[in-house]
């Protein structure tokens, strides 16, 4: 091979294959494709690799796939930066209407689940308790004029208790109104009760949860009817103690 100094142009020097070249095996084992694209090759190494891949179809293909991948991943990253993935709250904020069916569905699901897991089993339990035979504590009330407040100690586990009052008032009426007021004078219970049979007490069945423990004033009034306006007939004081 003729020496470089005797050549008249760089093209002729190249035409003689004067450059040392990387071979394909070296290119593969050194990961030249990736190093080249990552800029990890020196200028001389880049030149060697370029001299190789210009002659090597396989390396050119690898380089092309890598370049296509690089350009597309760069485009993907740019897309992501231009329109960052919004948080779920940001997404909902931008599309408030979209939340309506979702909330409605969620609410329906929540109610259904709550009913299925809590309400319905609870009602079933209460129904079962209600129809199961049980003892009911009964307490007779005496008008205030008959002494101090009556203490009603409702035993633990008693779901109901009964209050009864002997009719000590004059006159007979078709129906009565039974009311209970707390210490502040607020009416907590008011029920319309039909008149009991003659000689029998007026009886009220109370559910334990209706009133908390405390001091109450109970009154019996006649239910208004034609020619007979409502009027208080009896007043009782009681202290309720739920054990």
């Amino acid at each position, binding site marked *: *091979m003729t020496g470089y100094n005797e050549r008249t142009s*760089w*093209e*002729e020097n*190249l*035409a*003689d*294959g004067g*450059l040392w*070249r990387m071979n394909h095996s070296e290119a593969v084992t050194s*990961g030249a*494709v*990736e*190093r080249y*694209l*990552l*800029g*990890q090759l020196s200028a001389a190494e880049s*030149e060697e690799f*370029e*001299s*190789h*891949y*210009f*002659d*090597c*179809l396989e390396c*050119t293909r*690898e*380089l*092309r*796939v*890598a*370049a*296509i*991948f*690089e*350009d*597309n*991943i*760069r*485009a*993907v*990253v740019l*897309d*992501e930066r231009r329109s960052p993935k919004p948080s779920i709250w940001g997404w909902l904020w931008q599309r408030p209407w979209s939340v309506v069916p979702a909330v409605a569905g969620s609410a329906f699901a929540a109610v259904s689940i709550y009913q299925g897991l809590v309400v319905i089993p609870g009602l079933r339990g209460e129904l079962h308790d209600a129809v199961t035979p049980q003892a009911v504590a009964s307490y007779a009330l005496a008008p205030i004029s008959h002494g101090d407040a009556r203490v009603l100690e409702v035993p633990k586990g008693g779901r109901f208790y009964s209050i009864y009052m002997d009719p000590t008032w004059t006159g007979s009426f078709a129906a009565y109104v039974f009311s209970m007021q707390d210490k502040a004078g607020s009416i907590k219970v008011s029920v319309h009760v039909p008149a009991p049979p003659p000689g029998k007490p007026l009886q009220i069945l109370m559910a334990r949860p209706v009133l908390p423990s405390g001091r109450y004033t109970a009154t019996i009034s006649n239910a208004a009817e034609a020619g007979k306006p409502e009027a208080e007939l009896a007043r009782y004081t009681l202290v309720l103690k739920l054990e």
Partner: protein
Amino acid sequence: MDYAVFDADYLARLRHRDQETEMHFTAYFSNAIGLKLRNRVRARHLIDEIRQDTFARVLKYLQSGRTIQYPERFGAFVQAVCTNVMLETMRRESMHPQAGEEPSDPPDHRVSFDVDIVTEERKQAVREVLADMTKKESTLLRLVYLEEVDRAEICKRFKVDHDYLRVLIHRAKAKFRETVRKKDFDDRLQ
């Protein structure tokens, strides 16, 4: 365009202006030159200019009757001519800026050195490749391709070396090719 094994017969056909061989020559080396220039020359018109000038010089050299001693290294010869043309062009551009024109940032055409290199299908394939990776790997890969982030700094922050990056990209590239092949929309990657 499946062969890149150059020989004396190929060069003879080029010398005699065989049309089919010339078409192969321009197609094959357009791709190779594009890959070479994509990270070195930003302006699309300069890439085209360098490419055309390289073709002209190589063909002129062959058609003038001069020979290439190792025809199988014809690609390396074209590459060397291209390097010289590139250096000349860049030197000329830096010494003789266009008079009377406002200097402006050259457009970044690397994303589209080939007209349709970025496509929705390919981007979707990339997303699938990223989704298949661990969080660390996909974050690394995204950072590597953000130009403003220094790669040495990335390696330092993630406590990996350059070989790790190289292998990561090699695996991602292979997975990308496999994904594209399965979808059967891109025979140019086969």
